[in-house]
């Protein structure tokens, strides 16, 4: 178990100050919570912060897959909560980053099996040792959501420019404690469609949600390819979306950076259009 030794070396118990526990939530499923959690975690760790990612989606574990760590997961969240396994033994260190750790969800258990009070204590323990604890919240507003929120102090709302996602995000914001100061990431934006009036714009979405805008992620094939491979694009310096995630990470870390105008790579036919003087 040489991995474990590195874990201890990298994330020693630090007394104070406590790290920030941020829940990544959306209400609606499939809007990119897990991808966002993985990439922000990777980007924050790449900046030198100690980051713990907690997959709170008990029964539907996925964060390990997005990070490419599925083969390393031996124990999970419920093992720790039920005190079968020590926290250190359940934390999986990332392949690429020395300071990024994952606590996977249990795949064969249910959200109702989680004791919320123990979850709160666990997140507190993690905050003692990590600068950031990012909690990947399951879809829905039931027990799984409550478990994911209970230990957090802040929230990131992931929302796609679709009516259903905005409605659900609005509902979730209403369920969060007022102290959470939720911030918004608009995911899967397609600027070309927005320009043509075929997609809600960031402004449209936020006219309804009215949250501080943390960032905008364009809908790029990078994400699909990266998820296929289990490599977060946030670590790829050439990736456009990776850059967006790194900017968001900088913002979370307190840097005063503007939210860049969302861009997307022009498609092949789009480029042809530009060549012939048409609109892309």
């Amino acid at each position, binding site marked *: 178990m040489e991995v474990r030794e590195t874990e201890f070396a990298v994330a020693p118990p630090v007394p104070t100050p406590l790290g920030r526990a941020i829940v990544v939530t959306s209400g609606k499923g499939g809007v990119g919570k897990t991808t966002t959690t993985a990439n922000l975690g990777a980007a924050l760790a790449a900046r030198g912060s100690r980051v713990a990612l907690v997959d709170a989606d008990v029964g539907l574990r996925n964060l390990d897959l997005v990070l490419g760590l599925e083969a390393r997961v031996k124990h999970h969240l419920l093992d720790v909560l039920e005190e079968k396994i020590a926290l250190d033994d359940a934390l999986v260190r990332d392949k690429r980053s020395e300071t990024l750790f994952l606590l996977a969800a249990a795949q064969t258990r249910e959200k109702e099996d989680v004791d919320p009070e123990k979850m709160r204590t666990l997140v507190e323990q993690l905050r003692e040792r990590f600068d950031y604890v990012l909690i990947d919240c399951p879809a829905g507003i039931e027990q799984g959501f409550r478990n994911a929120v209970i230990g957090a102090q802040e929230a990131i709302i992931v929302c796609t420019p679709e009516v259903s996602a905005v*409605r659900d995000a609005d509902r979730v914001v209403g369920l969060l404690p007022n102290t959470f100061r939720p911030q918004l990431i608009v995911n899967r934006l397609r600027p070309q469609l927005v320009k043509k009036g*075929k997609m809600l*714009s960031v402004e449209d979405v936020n006219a309804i949600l009215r949250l501080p805008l943390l960032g905008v992620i364009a809908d790029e094939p990078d994400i699909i390819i990266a998820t296929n491979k289990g490599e977060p694009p946030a670590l790829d310096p050439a990736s456009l979306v990776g850059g967006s995630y790194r900017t968001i990470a900088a913002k979370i870390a307190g840097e005063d950076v503007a939210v860049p105008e969302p861009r997307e790579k022009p498609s092949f036919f789009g480029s042809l259009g530009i060549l012939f003087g048409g609109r892309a």
Partner: protein
Amino acid sequence: MLDFFKSLFRPQPSSATAKERLRLVLLSDHLSLAPDVIESLKADLLEVIRRYVVIDEQHADVSFEHREHEIAMLASIPIVSVNGDRPAPPPPTPIRAPLPVTTASTVTEAPTVTAPAVAVPVEPEPVQAGAPVAPVRTRRRRRRKRTADGQPSLAQVQLQA
């Protein structure tokens, strides 16, 4: 008006449709998520109407209807008698049929072809009925406003037009 003609010639972009649908559905969501607000609105509404007529509170109903282009507030308040001549006992059966006051007040700014009579932006104003008669304060006020104290806000109310 200009918008109306424009819309005849050019179809609305789908994002505008999405925006409008979202606005209405969220308005409706927020209303249904705030039952105590509705209750206190209803209590206030009845109180105002009671100044002018005697009403059958048991059968009064205030609801919201999600229509095509607006959210309308519908109040059905059976009137027992005009102030001054109070009948002895309330009738055994609800008299809904005679005079159900149906106030349709939109909470929309959207251009609608069928503009309802009373257009109230967000906060319902007291309905101005005929000449005020001496107010009757016989019935006990059923409910005081309960929204002032900061309840744990499970439901976030953003009444925005």
